[in-house]
């Protein structure tokens, strides 16, 4: 079980810049959202299917989504306007 997002750049200068830009602990925690018109039960099943497709280390949810939000979002403090993914697959 992985407890951190793996590094994305082999070069330390690039990785440091990446981590400084995409905060590992966003000031406004990322709340779980569902894809439009998808029920929670189906979404949970979809996550299992994504894991079956790419592996458990390649599907991210909740706080592991910090690399997938806009670090400069002017609406980060407004849940109704903030844009966040429901999950990430790599």
């Amino acid at each position: 079980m992985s407890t951190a997002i793996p590094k994305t750049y082999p070069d330390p200068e690039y990785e440091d810049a990446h981590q400084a830009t995409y905060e590992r602990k966003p000031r406004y925690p990322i709340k779980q959202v569902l894809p439009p018109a998808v029920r929670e039960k189906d979404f949970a099943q979809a996550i299992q299917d994504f894991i079956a497709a790419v592996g458990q280390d390649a599907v991210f949810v909740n706080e592991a989504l910090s690399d997938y939000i806009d670090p400069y979002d002017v609406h980060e403090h407004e849940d109704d306007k903030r844009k966040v993914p429901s999950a990430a697959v790599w």
Partner: protein
Amino acid sequence: MAKCLTSTLMTFHSPHTTDQLKEVLKVANKYAIPLWTFSRGKNLGYGGPAPRVNGSVALDLHRMNKVIEVNDEFHYAVVEPGVTFIDLYNYCVEHKKKVWPSTASLGWGSVMGNTLDRGMGFGAHFVHHQNIAGLEVMLADGDLVRTGQFGITNSPSAFLSKFTFGPSIEGLFLQSNMGVVTKLSMWLQPQPEAYMLCTFSMPEFEDLEVIVDAFGEMRRNNTINSLVWFSSLVETLCISGRRSDYWKGEGAIPDWRLEELKKETGYGHWYARWGLYGPRRVVQAQFEEIKAVMSKKAPTGGITGALYDSEGGVVAADVPIEHGGMFVGYPQMWSLPLISWPIPRDNVGGKPAHGDYAPIIPSKGKLLLEWMKDSKPLCEAAGVELMADFFMMERHVVLMNMFTWDQTDVTQKEKMEKLYYGLHELAKKSGYGMYRAHVNHMGEFLRMRG
């Protein structure tokens, strides 16, 4: 603390392949989940990796990062989505390829992501999407499509020609969600025998008109066949400092203080920078012609040219950074700290952020000056200076009205949102579309269409 979802014991390889991508698309189809695809997620200022539709699943392709081919006979590269500008540069150095791949201002972005979002570099091949020859795309149903001559399995012209038999379809996959691009070919600048970094500066705000008209003409008559990049005084200042280094008062630096700073630093109000690439005698002839044109049309301006030449080809990394960097395709991260402009040095908790309003405007001095004059008071009302630069093509420019703020300050964020809409109203009045839109604002640009 970040964690992976681990509610199954199944282990698989991570999705480096189109087969795995196909499986991901199958799952998304089964549950009707929208996917938001990106390669490196560095679309900063336009939403970064955040999805247009809230709740989409982010499809991160950064681990598909193979450089498939770099060819220095015909000068092109074929890359997967995750290849960054620095990756491609390093590959070329390591394999002694005699090419200078174009790079965006920051080396961490994806070559493909930038190109598909109509991004730009700084040399003769700077309009990246216009240098695409063939694409491989996976459609939503898992079918793989190859475009142009790349569609012919054994074509020796797969990456040499932009000709298609029948309709061209590459455009369907630019700034679009109609497929997942898995391979991209891009034409590259041959490593030149000679390279010259040129600058032209003018002292006054109103000088913009003459400088744009003169360079616009030289772009069209092919005296200059590479990017001419224009930047303003405030951009020049932010390279060497922060606002608080120059101004202790509230809000934007006022004009009278900018005039003082101009005198103190010796900077011009406008700077044009461009590279010349090719055989030495051609480069020198180009420079002589430009010098003659500008001394006639803009005698108060100052021109410089720094020439580097080598019979075996100029080595990009050998050009000093002040004359090379992105102009020779040597990827950098040096410009990232520029966005710290609004953070006072004693504000250690501040977090720099930036946005851009980026209209397409004809290369006509009168129109550019008008845009600067009209957008300046909007910027100042939001507490920021007019921080504008623009990229000149043959017939139009892509202008970046950049604004920076402290992301930890809600009031500043509100002001930036208001500024964005102010600039949008200005653009709408003149009929200026955007080269790229923020995920929050894509709908507004689509609605500009009649």
